[in-house]
């Protein structure tokens, strides 16, 4: 009976909406104008951004769990068809935190990715690698009380693209995070450790800071790996946290 008892979470999740969120240092994200990634040329603003003091619109955010009627099966990308997809079965799990280290619970995590051959099930992706009839490549879940999420999927393959001669994207899984406020919205890509394509990929290298780039690389976990079943990769994600309470300035 006692094994059924729900234990208190070890970490106190975020329960209050901050009145304002921390401003990020320059270089926290890649520049919108980044010539090595050619498509940025015509798709970046040339005028300076206008500083917006955060109002209630920016510090609130939608609750989408009910709207999307998320089911536990939505997080298993290997069980969406009659058969099993081809490829290396993996789990990708981690925790969603704010920059204070507090877990963000009940927030939407969405992923999409190529199949084991590096092909997306999208009408524009026509490079000559096979589609897998048993793999759609999209999943979603809500974080739990400790900010945890977990997906079961197939390790995506790298694929060529047209940015420059012999351009290849390192294997990656796209992540979309709603956070708990408009200010926290983030879309990123999770990479796999030691990918040989890292050095040649302008999207990965658009993050100029070495440590920041490393934050997009998952880690392999032998402890999380399930014997005779699936290799485990772990990927923690950090979204902007509350700004420090402003102190009254001494005069």
């Amino acid at each position: 009976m006692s094994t059924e008892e729900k234990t208190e979470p070890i970490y106190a999740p975020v329960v209050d909406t901050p009145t304002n969120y921390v401003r990020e240092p320059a270089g926290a994200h890649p520049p919108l104008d980044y010539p090595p990634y050619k498509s940025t040329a015509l798709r970046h603003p040339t005028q300076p951004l206008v500083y917006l003091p955060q109002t209630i619109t920016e510090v609130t955010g939608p609750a989408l769990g009910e709207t999307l009627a998320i089911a536990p099966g939505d997080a298993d990308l290997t069980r969406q068809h009659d058969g099993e997809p081809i490829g290396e079965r993996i789990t990708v799990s981690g925790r969603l935190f704010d920059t204070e280290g507090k877990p963000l619970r009940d927030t939407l995590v969405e992923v999409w990715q190529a199949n084991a051959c590096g092909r997306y099930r999208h009408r524009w992706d026509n490079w000559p690698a096979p589609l897998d009839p048993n793999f759609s490549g999209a999943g979603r879940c809500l974080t739990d009380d400790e900010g945890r999420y977990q997906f079961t999927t197939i390790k995506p393959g790298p694929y060529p693209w047209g940015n420059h001669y012999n351009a290849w994207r390192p294997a990656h899984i796209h992540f979309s995070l709603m956070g708990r406020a408009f200010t926290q919205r983030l879309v990123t890509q999770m990479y796999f450790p030691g990918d040989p394509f890292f050095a040649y990929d302008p999207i990965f290298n658009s993050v100029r800071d070495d440590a920041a780039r490393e934050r997009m690389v998952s880690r392999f976990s032998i402890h999380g790996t399930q014997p005779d079943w699936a290799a485990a990769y772990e990927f923690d994600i950090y979204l902007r946290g509350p700004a420090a309470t402003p102190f009254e300035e001494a005069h």
Partner: protein
Amino acid sequence: MIFQTTPSQTVGPYFAIGLPWAEGPHAVEPGMPGAITITGSVYDGAGAPIPDHLIETWQADPDGRYADVHGYGGASRLEGFRGFARYGVEVGDGDYQIVTVKPGRVAEPGGRLQAPHIAVTLMARGMLNRVVTRIYFGDEEEANAEDPILALVPAERRGTLIATPEDGGYRFDIRLQGPGETVFFDV
């Protein structure tokens, strides 16, 4: 701040397999009294419509309340109001279309009332991070004139944030670059 944020990466060309959903463009139930449609195109620096962009909007209901995770500021009581819309374009002329209601006025932290507005996130292939803008309404001249956020925008560029009334709603085009470049915000 103890930790640094995870860096942004582009949403890429294939987000349509994961992000849009059928009711995504509806911030309210279509057919709700007062429902309006906001339509627009997104243009690149060559003036060409971008055929692969993702737009998200977030706003208050007509009473100035949000369908927020915490009910911060008092939760919306409008049945069927989600306040959030997501529209992912993947083909065609780049027109997006969301169904919503015109939001009410909410105060900024200093207590001054803002004009009705909708917060917008725009992402696309070729954009390594989102850009953020706001939709204001062309038939709210008086409220717009006293809006504390619009006042921070150089006067000659404010027009880029104002949606034009049209049949059944409003039109709001976004220009990423060049003449008439939309104002984007640092939030």
